[in-house]
C-alpha cells in the first residue's frame, strides 16, 4: 500500500553542478565586441544590439526613448511601413527598448532569414531620418498612452518611488510629463542619434542556431560602421534622495486599492553584499513561499500578490517592496511588511526554510539555463554589469553556503524600516 504521507526521496538541488555554457567572443573590424552562443534545438536566433544610448545620456527629457522608438519609423529609402513589412514578412520580430544606460534593438527570427534581415537593422542604425510627421504621431500617441497610465495608481506609484529614492534629476528617478513630450524636436533627436547610435558605443549579443560564418556576416553588416567599443563613457550621476520618507497620494477618487511601494537605496551588483542579499530577498519577498506572500497574501488575504526585489540598475540600485492591496487594508499591509523586516532582524531563519530557499534558487537557475536566449541573458547581465564569469559561480556558491547568521546580519544592515521610503497611491 502506497504511503502518500511520505515524500519521495529527492536529490537536493544544492548538489547539482551548475555550468554556464560559455559563449564565444570576437570583435568586428571596427572593434565592436560580439558575444555569440550557438545553441538550442529550434532553428531560431536572437540578436541584440546594445547601444549606450539610454536616458542617462540625454540632455533633454525623453529624447533617448523617442530616438530609440523612432529607429523603426523611416530611413531615406524606406517608410516606417516598409521597415515593419521587411521584418514581418519573414515572421521576424524587431523590438526596441530604452533603459537608463543602454538602449537596445532586439531581432528574433527563424535562422533561415538572418541574411535578409541584418541589412534592415543596419539601415535603421545608420540612415534613420526622423521625419516631422513621424515625430508628430509619436508625440500624440505617447501623450495619449501617458494619460491612460496616469489613471493607474500602480503606474503613478512606480514613478514617484523612484523619484524619492534617486531624485527627479537622476536618470533612475526622472519621469516624463506631457510637456516633456511636447518639447521634443527632430533636431534634438537627430543630434542624439548621431552621437549615440551612428557614432555610438555598441555591444552585440547573438544566440540560437547560428550559421558557421556568423562572424563574417556580422562584419559585413556592422563591421564597417563608425560605432565602436570605447566611446561615450557613462556620465556619473549622484542621487539626491528626498528628505521626506512617507507619502500618501490620492490619484483616483474611485480607487478601491492602494498601490504600495517601499524602497531604500542599495549598492550595485559589484558590492560584496549583493549576492548574499539576493538570498535574503528571496526569503523576504522573492518567491511564492516568501515571508511577505505567506503572511500578507496567504494568511491575511490583503492582496493578490506582494513582491520584493532589487532593481536591475548598473550603477546603484534600490531594494523595493511592491504590492496592490485593498484600500482598507493598505496601512495594515505596510505595518505587516515592517513586522516581517523586524523578524528577519531578530530571529534566525531556520535550517528547513533556508534549505528550501537554497534548493528553490538553484532549481530556478537550472530551469533558467534552459535555452540559448536565457543563457545569453545571463551572459549579458554579467557583461553589462562589468562582472566576470566567476560572478555566476560565486552566486551559486553563496546560495549553497550562506548562513542564517549572515542573513540576520544583512537584515540588520539593510532592512531597517526607518531607511525605507513609504508610499501609498490610491
Amino acid at each position, binding site marked *: 500500500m502506497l504511503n*502518500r504521507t511520505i515524500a519521495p526521496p529527492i536529490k537536493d538541488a544544492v548538489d*547539482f553542478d551548475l555550468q554556464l555554457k560559455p559563449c564565444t567572443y570576437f570583435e568586428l573590424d571596427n572593434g565592436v565586441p560580439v558575444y555569440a552562443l550557438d545553441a538550442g534545438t529550434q532553428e531560431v536566433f536572437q540578436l541584440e544590439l546594445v547601444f549606450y544610448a539610454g536616458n542617462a545620456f540625454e540632455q533633454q527629457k525623453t529624447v533617448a526613448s523617442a530616438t530609440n522608438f523612432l529607429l523603426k519609423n523611416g530611413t531615406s529609402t524606406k517608410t*516606417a511601413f516598409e521597415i515593419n513589412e521587411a521584418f*514581418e514578412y519573414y*515572421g521576424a520580430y524587431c523590438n526596441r527598448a530604452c533603459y537608463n544606460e543602454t538602449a537596445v534593438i532586439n531581432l528574433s527570427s527563424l535562422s533561415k532569414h538572418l541574411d535578409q534581415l541584418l541589412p534592415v537593422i543596419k539601415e535603421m542604425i545608420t540612415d534613420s531620418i526622423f521625419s516631422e510627421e513621424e515625430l508628430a504621431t509619436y508625440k500624440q500617441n505617447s501623450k*495619449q498612452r501617458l*494619460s491612460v497610465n496616469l489613471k493607474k495608481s500602480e503606474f503613478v506609484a512606480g514613478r514617484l518611488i523612484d523619484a524619492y529614492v534617486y531624485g527627479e534629476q537622476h536618470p533612475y528617478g526622472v519621469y516624463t510629463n506631457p510637456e516633456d513630450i511636447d518639447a521634443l524636436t527632430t533636431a534634438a533627436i537627430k543630434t542624439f542619434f548621431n552621437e549615440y547610435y551612428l557614432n555610438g558605443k555598441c555591444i552585440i549579443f547573438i544566440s540560437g542556431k547560428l550559421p558557421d560564418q556568423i562572424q563574417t556576416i556580422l562584419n559585413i553588416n556592422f563591421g564597417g560602421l563608425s560605432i565602436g567599443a570605447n566611446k561615450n563613457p557613462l556620465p556619473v550621476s549622484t542621487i539626491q534622495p528626498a528628505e521626506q520618507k512617507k507619502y500618501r497620494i490620492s490619484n483616483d477618487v474611485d480607487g478601491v486599492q492602494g498601490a504600495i511601494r517601499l524602497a531604500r537605496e542599495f549598492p550595485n551588483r559589484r558590492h560584496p553584499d549583493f549576492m548574499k542579499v539576493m538570498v535574503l530577498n528571496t526569503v523576504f519577498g522573492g518567491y511564492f513561499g516568501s515571508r511577505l506572500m505567506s503572511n500578507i497574501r496567504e494568511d491575511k488575504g490583503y492582496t493578490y500578490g506582494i513582491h520584493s526585489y532589487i532593481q536591475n540598475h548598473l550603477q546603484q540600485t534600490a531594494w523595493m517592496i511592491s504590492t496592490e492591496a*485593498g484600500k482598507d487594508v493598505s496601512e495594515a499591509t505596510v505595518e505587516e511588511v515592517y513586522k516581517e523586516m523586524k523578524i528577519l532582524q531578530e530571529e534566525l531563519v531556520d535550517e528547513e526554510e533556508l534549505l528550501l530557499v537554497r534548493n*528553490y534558487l538553484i532549481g530556478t537557475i537550472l*530551469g533558467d539555463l534552459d535555452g540559448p536566449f536565457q543563457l545569453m541573458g545571463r551572459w549579458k547581465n554579467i557583461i553589462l554589469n562589468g562582472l566576470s564569469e566567476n560572478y555566476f559561480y560565486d552566486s551559486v556558491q553563496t546560495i549553497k553556503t550562506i548562513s542564517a547568521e549572515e542573513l540576520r546580519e544583512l537584515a540588520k544592515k539593510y532592512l531597517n524600516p526607518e531607511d525605507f521610503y513609504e508610499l501609498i497611491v490610491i
Partner: protein
Amino acid sequence: MIQFERFVLANGLTVLVHEDKSTPMAVVNVLYDVGARDEDPNKTGFAHLFEHLMFGGSINIPVYDEPLQVAGGENNAYTTNDLTNYYCQLPAENIETAFWLESDRMLSLAFGKKSLDTQRKVVCEEFKEHYINKPYGDVWKRMRELAYTTHPYRWMTIGKELSHIENATLEDVKAFFQKHYTPSNAVLVVAGNITVNQVKELAEKWFGPIPAGNKYERNLPQEPKQMAPRTAEVKANVPLDALYKCWHIYARTDKRYYIADLVTEILGGGASSRLYQALVKEKKLFSNIECYHFGSTDAGLLAIEGKLVKGVAMKDAEAALNDELFKIQQEGITEKELEKVKNKTESMMAFEDMSLMNRAASIAMYELLGDASLINKELDLYKAVTAKDIIGESRIIFDINNTNTLYYFAN
C-alpha cells in the same frame, strides 16, 4: 516535429510523454477539463477560485508549494473559460515529487474554512486589481454580456461579480471538486529529461490508485446565431474615448478557425498590419488599434479595440474602421500579405515551442481538443488557407448582423 507517446490508465487518466534529453529539467502538467463555462450562472468565478484552493493542501500533504520548492521546483496554474491547467517544472531527477503532489490533490483536497476565507479575499483583490481599479477595466465584462446571450462565455473567468466569490461556501467548493477533478476529466503531460517507461511506472504508482469518479458530460447551452447588430454605450472616468467591436467566429476545432486566425493577423498583427497602417499612421484617428481573437474552445469572438485620438468623433473613427473591414470583404488580400501572415505563424510556433513548459501545455491542450497530434499538423492547416478563403470568411464574420459594438466614452 514534437514527439510524444500516449497511454490511458484504467481509471481514465490520459497520460502523454514528451522526451527531451537536451534539458536537465522535467515538466509535469495536469490539465483539468473544467473552466468558467462549466459554472452555474449564479455561482460564477468558481473554477478560478478553486484553482487557488488547490494550493491549500491535499488529503495527505498539508502544503503543496514547500515540498516542491525543496525539490528545486516551481509551479503555477491558470484558469480560462475552457480549462484549468496546473504545471510544475523541476530538476528531472526529482520528478517523483511532482507525481506525489499532483496525484494527492487529484485524490482529495483537505483545505478548511480558513483557506477558503483567505483565498476568497485574495481573489477579490485580484478582481479589483485587474477589473475595477484600472481604466477600461470593465470592458470585457460588458462586451461578453453584449455578445453572448446564452452561452456561458457570457461571464469572465474571474466571475460575473464580486458577490459570487464572497458568497462561495465550503459545500459549493467540495461539490465542484467531486464533479470535475477526476482522472477521466484530466490530462497528464510529462515532458523533459525522462523516459516513457519511467513515466508509465510513476503514473501507475501515484495516479493509478485514484478512483475513476464520473466523467463529466458537458452540455452547455449553445449561442444562437446573432440576427441583428448590438450596441452598448458606457461613460466612465477615463481619459480617452475607446471603441470595441466583436464578431462571433468558430470553435477551435473548426477548419475555419485557421482562416479567422489569419484574418486577425492581416488586420492587426504588428505595425505593418492593415488597421495600424490605415487608422493610426495614415488617418491618425486612433492612437492604438488591435485585432485579435479569444482562441476559445467553443465558438469565440474576434475583437478589434482602439483608443481614439483626442478630438476625433466616434462616428468618424467607426466609419474609417468599417471602411477597412469593407475593403477586405470587397478586395480580399494579396498573395504577399497571405505569405506574410503564414510566415509569421510559422515563426510564432517555433518560438512557442522553444520552452519545455509551453510544449507540455500545448500537448495537453491539443489532447483536450481531441487530438494531441494537432500540435504537428496545425502549420499545414494554416498553410492550406487561400486568399479566397480569407475574402469569403471576412464577408461572413464582418456581416453587420454579427457585429457587437461597445462605445466607451470619457466623461
